[in-house]
């Protein structure tokens, strides 16, 4: 028997208990909801970003640029007559020297770069200069005799031409043509030096792209994440360079001081210096979500924000030199193309595999790389790593980065166990592309770099690793948690750490689910027995 007062009291008690149980859940619900809403209204955080839009000077007014230029060197002289310290700056740059400092395993610092490195595309430049150096910012690097101290040979206008008319000839050792000349089905015209010189400016994407979009001898062959389509790109493909997006030029990120352009490509670079970073503008903590910000300690921005590369044109994934040298029955050059128009066989070069919309491979990388140096011994039972990205989970400077892996099959010396730099280009009697004799090409090529050649050659599998930095996807198109945190993880190959969602002990799972199963079965049997008895 309860008094009215007491039943009221009991009711209030129950009410308080109920509120105490419900409140944390309500708070939790709105907290979660609130986080979600605030993330929807996310905006890209930017610092340090400023765009120069108005040129500082109008070069058409300078008298020295009114003179009639006969040779490209005259243009350079005119440039340097005002920019009289710039030649010195340019000649210190890797764009000029094609080398950078490299510390070997023995601790020596040597100059390493295109000059003396090999890749698994057209392999090496030595003895092939006139073809390769059409992408050098100089005139006349046709062999070892090229004078790297003569500033008159600097090609200023390949980078600074804003008319879009200046072209170097593909086999001209860096020179443009003097008279109209054909290369394949493309026609090259002598440049109008006066017009070009009066219209110089900050390099645009077309200037950089003239070499960097077509490295390896064709569009998007090498990089995979930069190609000719960058000139007309949408933000869906590249959120930074998209004409409908931020519409940024290369040099907006690749900041330059005294012609030292920031940015490393680890197919040739090796040091963790002079790099371009996303954090410079976006900071190290760009997300609203703390847990995602914490990821930046071990995951590079590119990993999540570049879900795939080669989004427009295909990029070359595999180059097999060993199949080169086959011709049509009439003896003419054999060329095969796939349905998309990508060349999959060429008599001079062998066979290729191309891919579109490629999901990158992922690797630990601390900003340092090792390279195969001519003369190093190789083990060809597994792919030879021509460049090696250094890093691992336990290294605190390492982050997971997206990488294009380019595989190859290329010539090596099975007796000396060294990679061979073959002489490919030239009209002489030993170049492979004229004579199709690997033996002669190897001999000449190796001689040009003072390396021994045994007289025997074979083909070895090789790999190159190209960190992917461009074609950043727009907001909302980046990777989601479960792209990595799942049993079907993109990071399946990175096995040196425990990744929640991906990793588990199958023994423990069996044990655990078994425990639950037996508890359940035991309970059911026990209950049935109780009911029956």
């Amino acid at each position, binding site marked *: 028997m309860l008094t009215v007062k007491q039943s009221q*009291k009991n009711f209030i008690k129950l009410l308080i208990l109920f509120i105490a149980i419900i409140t944390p859940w309500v708070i939790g619900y709105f907290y979660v909801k609130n986080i979600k809403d605030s993330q929807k209204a996310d905006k890209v955080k930017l610092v340090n970003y400023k765009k120069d839009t108005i040129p500082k000077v109008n070069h058409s007014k300078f008298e020295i640029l009114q003179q009639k230029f006969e040779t490209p060197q005259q243009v350079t002289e005119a440039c340097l007559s005002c920019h009289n310290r710039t030649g010195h700056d340019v000649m210190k740059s890797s764009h000029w020297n094609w080398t950078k400092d490299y510390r070997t395993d023995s601790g020596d610092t040597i100059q390493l770069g295109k000059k003396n490195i090999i890749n698994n595309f057209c392999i090496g430049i030595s003895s092939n200069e006139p073809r390769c150096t059409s992408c050098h910012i100089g005139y006349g690097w046709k062999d070892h005799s090229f004078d790297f101290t003569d500033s008159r040979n600097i090609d200023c206008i390949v980078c600074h031409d804003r008319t879009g008319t200046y072209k170097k000839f593909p086999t001209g050792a860096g020179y443009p043509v003097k008279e109209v000349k054909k290369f394949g089905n493309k026609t090259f015209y002598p440049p109008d030096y006066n017009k070009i010189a009066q219209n110089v400016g900050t390099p645009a994407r077309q200037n950089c792209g003239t070499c960097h979009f077509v490295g390896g001898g064709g569009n998007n062959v090498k990089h995979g994440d930069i190609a000719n389509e960058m000139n007309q790109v949408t933000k869906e493909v590249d959120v930074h360079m998209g004409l409908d997006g931020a519409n940024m030029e290369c040099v907006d990120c690749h900041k330059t001081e005294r012609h030292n352009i920031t940015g490393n490509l680890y197919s040739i670079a090796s040091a963790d210096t002079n790099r371009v970073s996303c954090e410079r503008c976006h900071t190290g903590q760009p997300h609203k979500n703390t847990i995602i910000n914490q990821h930046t300690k071990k995951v590079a921005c590119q990993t999540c924000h570049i879900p795939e590369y080669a989004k427009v044109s295909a990029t070359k994934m595999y180059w097999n030199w060993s199949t080169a040298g086959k011709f049509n029955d009439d003896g003419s050059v054999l060329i095969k193309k796939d349905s998309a128009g990508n060349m999959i066989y060429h008599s001079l070069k062998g066979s290729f595999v191309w891919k579109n919309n490629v999901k990158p491979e992922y690797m630990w990388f601390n900003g340092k790389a090792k390279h195969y140096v001519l003369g190093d011994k190789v083990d060809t039972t597994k792919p030879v790593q021509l460049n090696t990205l250094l890093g691992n989970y336990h290294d605190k400077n390492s982050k997971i980065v997206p990488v294009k892996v380019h595989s190859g099959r290329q010539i090596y010396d099975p007796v000396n166990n060294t990679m061979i730099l073959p002489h490919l280009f030239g009209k002489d009697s030993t170049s492979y592309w004229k004579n199709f004799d690997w033996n002669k090409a190897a001999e000449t090529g190796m001689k040009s770099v003072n390396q021994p050649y045994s007289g025997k050659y074979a083909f070895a599998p090789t790999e190159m690793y190209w960190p992917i930095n461009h074609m950043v996807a727009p907001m909302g198109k980046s990777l989601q948690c479960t792209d990595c945190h*799942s049993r079907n993880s993109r990071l399946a190959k990175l096995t040196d750490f425990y990744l929640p969602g991906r990793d*588990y002990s199958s023994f423990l799972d069996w044990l655990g689910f078994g425990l*639950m199963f037996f508890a359940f079965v035991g*309970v059911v049997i*026990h209950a049935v027995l109780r009911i029956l008895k």
Partner: protein
Amino acid sequence: MKKRTYIYRGFERFWHWSQALLIFFLALTGFEIHGTFSVFGFENVVRWHDIAAWAFLVLIVFAIFWHFVTGEWKQYIPTTKFIKAQISYYITGIFKGAPHPTHKTIYNKFNPLQRIIYLGLKLLVIPVQVLTGFIYMFYIYPNNPVNVSGLSVIALIHTFGAFTLLAFVIAHVYLTTTGDTPLSSIKAMLTGWEVVDVDEKEERTKHLQHAVDESAAGYYRIDKEGNIIDVNEAWLKMFKCKDRSKVIGKHYSFTRDKKNLKELDDLVKRVLNGEVITGLPATRQCMDGSKGKHLLSANPVIEEGEITGMEGFILDISETEELTEHMYYAVRNSGAGYYRLNEEGIITDVNEAWLELYKYDNKEEVIGKHYTITRRPTEVGQLEDTFKKVMNGETLSGKLAIRRCKDGSVGKHILSADPIFIGNKIVGMEGFILDISEIDIDKEE
């Protein structure tokens, strides 16, 4: 003896069910993080798992506090006693309808298996889960802030803990059905009330203690030297004393004027020699110097075979002074009868003296009966009145009543009655009766 008892208090139930919900929720989100299934989205479950972890931590802090403040932690002290019996009960006994080998009481809520399992959860599994969970939460890649080389070991321990908890939940939920009825244990955890064993002697002591504390009868106890050791509120009230400490430790002599003291000295002597005194009228001297009259009972306190003091009750009769003389004789011949009723008016306990007064042979004859059997139909109304008043919280004393005995004869007594509380709830009425019928009946004749 079984009795519906309030065994799980409000916080305990809140804690239990919140913990149950949190474990369920943490398992659900945790196994999505583990990659077992994909339903709510990884980003969501990670956030929810973190929030639930913090909520759990807060709950644990409160629960630890509660266990220590209430002393309930003692319920988890492990014992090996009866553990074999408990196991064999679950393996065989339960199928034969054997009784539980241990008795659930408010002081012993858990059987020996429960004690060990719950203690294991509290000291091992949950702390391990909390610890590994927080390392998991705050460990962000090498050396920061704790140096464990990777999450691997932490994550595997955490996963194993989760499996252990889930297996426990399965067994635990099932074992709740092994109570008196399949749902009685769950109902108990929802409402707090469960029918559990009560220790009869302990119950009795508790009720008598309560009766003594709360009744209108004054209680006192003195030691061999005559110093007062204990008195109850009613005693203090009768002696018009507000401060118990002014009484405790003093010699009884201050309770009488000189004239009446000798009588008391004699009485004390007799009782300390083993005699039992009932119903002796006495004149007390109150603290303010005024006088009052009461009836007194006294019996020796025996501890380990030796008389160590004297105790008894006093019932105030100042207001019914005209009866004093009669009462003297009446009460002299009777002990104080004790009775207890539940909230429906059913008799739940009486003492020997009560049985004698009502001429019953044993308790079983009256326990479980309604109090109306104790009155003639014409006098029931009066008792109903008393019962109602007490159930509304009043305490009554010195009420005259005419009882109906077992054989239909009647007797007269004075009665005290007070409510029995559990928490704030009145659950019954109890009190004493003192017989005064001899004189009255004589007079009527």
